[in-house]
């Protein structure tokens, strides 16, 4: 793998950039792999990467029915934070955030992690108490957050309107080392690194069946033929239910559409991520200058990648209330992604009733931020059978009533 650097770019510039190699090899499936990961989104690719990097398992195929990074990895609002309330969530999201800090260097691919800060506004007394509690919890979890005053809010985000009129800003939970990253680059960077370790990333390869021997998985059928494996990881977000059905089990998952939109680009005006959960909206500004905006998810099962427009209206209304200067900007693009919501809105990283078949799904509206941590933990789970980061996120929690409920701290997750 040719290393990326400013010098390499300068050198190539002199020869018309003809020397750049493929970022990842074109691969055809082999008959057998030690591990097959289904789904070449961020989580699947990160899992493969850490299987290789941490456990030396490189006879790995990552199968993708479309194009890599083409699902929710490339359709989210790229927020990275770890200011979660419950211990298991804080652990995996903070591990993830910490990995993001050095991901560009690890992968030799600039994923543009920008720790510009994430601010969650408290606009009711109830929210103030919730975020104060989160700040207390975070202090013991090793997550650096702070509850800040309205004056500090205004200083960090000058375009905000503090005084309401409907919901005044009473303070905010501030995570200075939260931020954003370039979503496509995360998928591409992991893919390039996996490919360099000799793993096969096979695009346009849809899994059509799961092969088993009794209670044990033995491989998959695909549109490119049958492929055998010792271990199988299903990492397909909104389509987890469909894959689980092939594997013969059900999941506590419903797939719904989550919408996002961007404005036309403008010069830098906001240098952090702001989330306003009471009014249901969040916003950041991309490096390109677009205001990146998200809100709530539709409440009904949906695989269409388009949601209902009234949710967009609600979100935009909420943000104009919070940032009145948005009013004369224009919405450039609006899209939806299919997110997999679990019974407690926390993810599932778990063994399944089918031996050697593992599932990583249920990230709901907040999967992007978790990609490195999820891959780190899930690779360990697949390699060793258990992992401190993922053990609490097992499937059996729904039977035992052992939920990881984050709705306490935030009405909207993402």
């Amino acid at each position, binding site marked *: 793998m040719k290393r*990326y*650097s400013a010098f390499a*770019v300068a050198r190539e510039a002199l020869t*018309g*950039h*003809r020397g750049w190699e*493929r*970022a*990842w090899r074109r691969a055809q499936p082999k008959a057998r792999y030690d591990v097959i990961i289904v789904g070449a989104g961020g989580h699947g690719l990160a899992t493969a990467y850490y299987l290789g990097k941490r456990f030396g398992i490189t006879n790995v195929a990552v199968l993708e029915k479309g194009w890599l990074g*083409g699902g929710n990895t490339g359709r989210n609002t790229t927020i990275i934070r770890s200011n979660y309330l419950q*211990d298991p969530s804080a*652990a995996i999201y903070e*591990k993830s955030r910490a990995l993001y800090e*050095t991901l*560009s260097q690890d992968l030799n691919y*600039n994923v*543009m992690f*920008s720790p510009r800060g994430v601010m969650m506004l408290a*606009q*009711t*007394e109830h929210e103030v108490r919730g975020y*104060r*509690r989160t*700040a207390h919890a975070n*202090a*013991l*979890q*090793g997550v650096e957050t702070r509850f800040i005053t309205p004056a500090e809010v205004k200083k960090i985000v000058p*375009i905000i309107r503090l005084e309401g009129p409907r919901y005044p800003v009473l303070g905010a939970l501030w995570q200075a080392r939260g*931020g954003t990253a370039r979503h*496509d680059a995360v998928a591409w960077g992991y893919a390039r690194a996996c490919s360099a370790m000799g793993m096969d990333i096979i*695009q346009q390869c849809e899994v059509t069946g799961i092969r088993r021997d009794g209670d044990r998985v033995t491989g998959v059928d695909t549109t490119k033929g049958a492929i055998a494996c010792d271990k199988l990881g299903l990492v397909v977000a909104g389509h987890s239910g469909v894959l689980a059905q092939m594997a013969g089990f059900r999941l506590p998952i419903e797939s719904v559409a989550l919408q996002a939109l961007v404005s*036309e*680009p*403008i*010069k*830098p*005006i906001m240098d952090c991520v702001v989330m306003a959960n009471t*009014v249901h909206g969040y916003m950041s500004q991309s490096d*390109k*200058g677009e205001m990146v905006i998200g809100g709530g998810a539709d409440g009904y099962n949906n695989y269409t990648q*388009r949601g209902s427009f009234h949710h*967009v*209206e609600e979100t*935009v*209304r909420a943000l104009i*209330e919070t940032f*009145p*200067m948005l*009013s*004369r*900007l*224009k*919405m450039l693009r*609006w899209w939806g992604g299919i997110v997999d919501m679990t019974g407690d809105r926390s993810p599932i990283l778990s063994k399944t009733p089918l031996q050697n078949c593992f599932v990583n799904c249920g990230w709901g509206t907040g999967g992007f931020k978790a990609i490195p941590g999820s891959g780190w933990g899930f690779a360990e789970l697949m390699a060793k059978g258990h992992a401190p980061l993922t053990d609490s996120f097992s499937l059996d929690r729904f039977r*035992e*009533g052992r*939920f990881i*409920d984050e709705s*306490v701290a935030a009405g909207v997750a993402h």
Partner: protein
Amino acid sequence: MSTRLATGGRLIDRSRQVSFTFDGTTLRGHPGDTLASALLASGRTLVGRSFKYHRPRGVIASGAEEPNALVGLGQGDRFEPNARATTTELFDGLQAASQNCWPSLDYDVGAVNAALSRFLPAGFYYKMFIHPRAFWKHVYEPFIRHSAGLGRAPAVEARDPDRYEHFHHHTDVLVVGGGVAGLQAAKTAGESGLRVLLVEQTGHWGGRAPVDGGTIDGKTPEDWIGDTLQALDNMPNVTLRLRLQGAGLYDHGYVLGYERLADHAPDAPGPRHRLWRIRAGRIVTATGAIERPLPFAGNDRPGVMLASAVRDYIVNWGVSAGDRLVVVTNNDDAYRTALAHHRAGLTVPAVLDARPEGGGALMAEAQAAGIRVLTGRGIAQVNGTRALTGVEICAQAGEGTPLETIACDAVAMSGGWSPVVHLWSHCGGKLVWDEAAAAFRPDPDRAPIGQDGASNVIAAGAANGQGDLSSILKDAEKAGKTAARDLGGTPSDASAPDAEQPAEAPLAPVWMMPQGAPHALRAKAFLDFQNDVKVSDVHLAAQEGFESVEHTKRYTTLGMATDQGKMSNINGLAVLSRALNAPIPQVGTTTFRPPYTPVSMGAIAGEARGPLFQPIRRTPLHDWHETHGAKWEPVGQWRRPYCYPRAGEDKHAAVAREIDATRGSLGLLDASTLGKIVVKGPDAGRFLDMLYTNMMSTLKPGRCRYGLMCSENGFLIDDGVVARLDDDTFLCHTTTGGADRIHAHMEDWLQTEWWDWKVYTANLTEQFAQIAVVGPNARKLLEKLGGIDVSAETLPFMAFAEGQLAGHPVRVFRISFSGELSYEIAVPAGQARALWDRIVDAGAEWQITPYGTEALHVMRAEKGFIMIGDETDGTVIPQDLGLDWAISKKKDDYLGKRAQARSHMTDPDRWKLVGLKTLDGSVLPDGAYAVTEGTNVNGQRNTEGRVTSSYHSPTLGHGIAMGLAHRGPERMGEVLTFMRDDGKTAIEARIVDPVFFDPEGAKQNV
């Protein structure tokens, strides 16, 4: 240089002038001009700078597809960035400013990027700026952000003074696009008698036809358009709207319309924009087609324009692009531009036709007019930097060796036409590749479908891939008839008008000019003009394995600019497919997302701004609180008084005073926001037994019982007092936030699980106000008001009475959330203020004191009463709160019972409710956690409890708190260590009984 011609311009009113400014210079135009036509008329060929390389750019198009001519409009609160000059109608006093340049449009420092462009290929930022780590955030990123971003941001404190509104519109047939196809489709559909809405995004009807010529039914297109409009006007079932764009198509026939009412007339009364939410049975997309540029080196220079745009400016606005216009094309249509330019008395030194055989009748007409036509030729490169001086021509088949230099000051290019398929695609309609036209067009076999599964979108005319006027009109007529028939209408048997236009020779696709252009030329051949994506960038993406069109788009940013690739997508796709050596349909097409062109945020928000953002629910006593200085707290949609500070008092002092007054004499609370749900019917008791953890069916009429409600998942969701009004009727009180939620919860179970039970529910929350009279003098007050026997014997604790109080019909509940002698008086909402005023008057002798939510909270905490949302957070079961007494052991079943039997719920190690008292009497921080030694597997500090409510108790003079602690009730007297939110500072607190005040209930039971 571009200029205003002496004659012509069908859309402008030459008799009048309007003045406007561009970058501070005053210029003039005519009513009917767009900002773009007026700028061109003023000789302004340089109007903006590109996104990445800051290259000088001029107007290239004449409509919504314009990528270059973006300006900042207006000033101050009305400033709008990124407005397209081509769709901005000119008005007197318009102020426009160029974008993305510093210090000025002419001398832009950022243009250094252009010189460095070879070091900034597609995706360069993924490969650079990796080391040192901290530099991305602090050095590289700020630089990139600053040079990107296009338009200036509105002022930090800008407050848009304009109004926006929403319309709902239901129609049988919606026709989008007011060109000849749209007019014909609307006419045909309208003749069937169905309701038709025809919308057009620009300010005039007829689209391109008047510019392109030909005849319709023997008339000029302009005359035919006039006649057809007249016919449509005469149909009462047809509605016509200009300046209304079909912006997005959604499921089940929902179309978003974006109407710009005042952008061209800022002083007009009414809203600036209007968002239409249209529901249509059938949608005809007559949205036309967009011309493609040709990829040749220097095609982005100011002065190089789309051929159709050059023609539009001549015919519509009487503006020439230059004196000497070279036309370069791969199809016949561009000859119309050569002819129009020639007819305007200007020079066309050459038409370069990339096709070896050239074109048909239009070419012959051009040649007959004396225009030199060179076939098999293209442009190798463009000379001149700011102003065009000429073009080097070359063989299209070759590698770009210049054959001849032709002097010119403008170039008109045409690479063919792409149907506007956006709306078709928004909701799942699929496309098919049309080899002959080299374009994607709607695939009628895979149309978007409506709720009934039938196709509900019909593409018509040029938007459906039709080329000549006659087939466009026939197709539109067919679309109108199909729509009418689908909806059960009977279309008239009138047939499509006859149209005539010169026959055209086939187009020859040109995806690179010349086809064998070397890297040096490819690196100057632009595909996406705004984002500076060149042919070489797409080649690089393909070379690096970004083979999916979505990958290439994201890697190069092709099609991601504010024009969303209207001009660039097909060219980019074709270049990619050639690089991959795969057919275009196999490489695919990118997804079209709404809106068609950017829609103002203000329009999306509509009227719901400021005070109308969300409705405020007001209790009947709201105004009294307002006039008595309430400090408000939002609670759901309500506002409740947090406290009533007096002059010089802060809120802490006010709360303390309110509590002292209440505990000492008499307090008064507006409890109207509490939910009040009547549950009635022979099975009401049985139903409530399922809903509450307690036994409610055994409650006697006239008595009250505190009840707990759990979700089926076992968690506590609400609490409140239930009163049995008679054998069949219960009144369930809920929390303020719970009224609607709990009512819905009840209805859900009643309607979908126990639908055979005879029970009705009604949410009467707003029908009754509830006034709590609280304190040692409460009974005296009620006796003074008179009408109801409130003696301890007649109205004991947890009983209620109905009757007249001070002449008002009331229900008086003797219940208490404060530990004081307390009556909650329910009164019809309309009489609440009168009763409240009487109470305030009568209570004066006991210094009656209104108190707010905070005093309420403190007093309940002093008594150890839990509060939903404080002690509960969706993860707490009643057993955690020591509320086992309120869980019936006799019942076989209630909602949540099975869930509470799961292993994690019965785990003795769960955290349970305790009282907490700091050793130094201070107030524990709300939300603080109690720590134990060591860390867990993930390195997080181990914890054993947390604070759920914490207050200073003015009654007791020290801090009090409630919390959940590991095996808490078993550990009375133990000291826990809580941490402040710095994670370091410890506060010690002792586990105590949560009832801090009057544990015997002496004050309440009097």
